[in-house]
């Protein structure tokens, strides 16, 4: 088996030894990342905080016995956070609430000159309305910037199945946000990212 090169290896080892500077550095590196994953998966800031805190607690417990070279710590932490998100999504399905968890899309604003915050809100709302697996694929590949192989492994699907989920998700987002696209008013798309 090929040893995995893990950029977090030394940091995790030091966390396991109780080095407070390493714990601080790991929190700065991972907490916003895991919080973003949970918030985009759940569409709820309070629940996302709970998931992120619980995932980091598991990271602290794991650090002293972490075996370097077997897996990337970041991938393992994503696995933990995703499982916590799945639990909460499953609970939502079992106990339906009156209030929908996803933020409603209020439709296009009357003014073309939308504020960036408004555009962001529309994007988040469209993302929240995607089917879970499509949303998960887009969150892992686009926002968390995992490779297709890492994302497919986390989702326990083939790379081809991942590509299919990504394509369907992006098509749905394009349709939902069509009025926001620069091309919809005749302008050319920018240089992208």
């Amino acid at each position: 088996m090929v040893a995995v090169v893990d950029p977090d290896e030394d940091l995790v080892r030091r966390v396991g030894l109780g080095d407070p500077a390493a714990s601080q550095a790991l929190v700065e590196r991972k907490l916003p990342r895991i919080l973003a994953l949970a918030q985009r998966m759940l569409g709820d800031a309070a629940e996302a905080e709970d998931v992120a805190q619980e995932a980091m607690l598991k990271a602290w417990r794991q650090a002293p016995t972490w075996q370097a070279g077997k897996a990337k710590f970041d991938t393992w932490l994503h696995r933990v956070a995703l499982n916590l998100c799945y639990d909460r999504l499953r609970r939502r399905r079992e106990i339906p609430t009156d209030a929908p968890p996803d933020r409603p899309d209020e439709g296009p604003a009357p003014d073309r000159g939308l504020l960036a915050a408004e555009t962001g809100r529309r994007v988040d709302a469209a993302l929240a309305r995607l089917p879970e697996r499509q949303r998960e694929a887009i969150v892992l590949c686009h926002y968390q910037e995992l490779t297709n192989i890492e994302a497919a492994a986390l989702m326990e699907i083939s790379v081809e199945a991942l590509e299919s989920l990504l394509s369907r998700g992006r098509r749905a987002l394009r349709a939902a946000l069509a009025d926001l696209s620069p091309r919809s008013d005749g302008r050319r798309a920018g240089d992208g990212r």
Partner: protein
Amino acid sequence: MKIDRLEVLAEAYGADLSRWPAHERAFAESLIAADPAARAVLEDAAALDALLDASPRIVASAALTARVLASAPKRKASRGHLGRVFWILGAGWAAAACAGVVAGVGLTSHVTANERADAILYQATLSGVDDTEVLG
């Protein structure tokens, strides 16, 4: 790579080739350089990428960060230099005490044996009976 494969990849991964499967990037780059239709596909994908990037950046609050840090593993208190000296002194005293106990037990058993022998001899004189009388 044909343009239909490029469309599939752009639809899945967007316009940023660094997100694409590594083994398909070189062919994609050559196709994009040569074919305006391929560039148009990438421009469409880039427009959606830009919209996705408008999603607000998520920042951890100071309170959450503090809660997480409070639960981080703590280094176990290690003995300082003085601590080590006291530990060695303590161990020395303990060893001396053990030696004292061993010596005491040995001495006691020796004294006890002597006293027991004296007691037997004393009892023998009290009885006033000679062994030869008893044994014949």
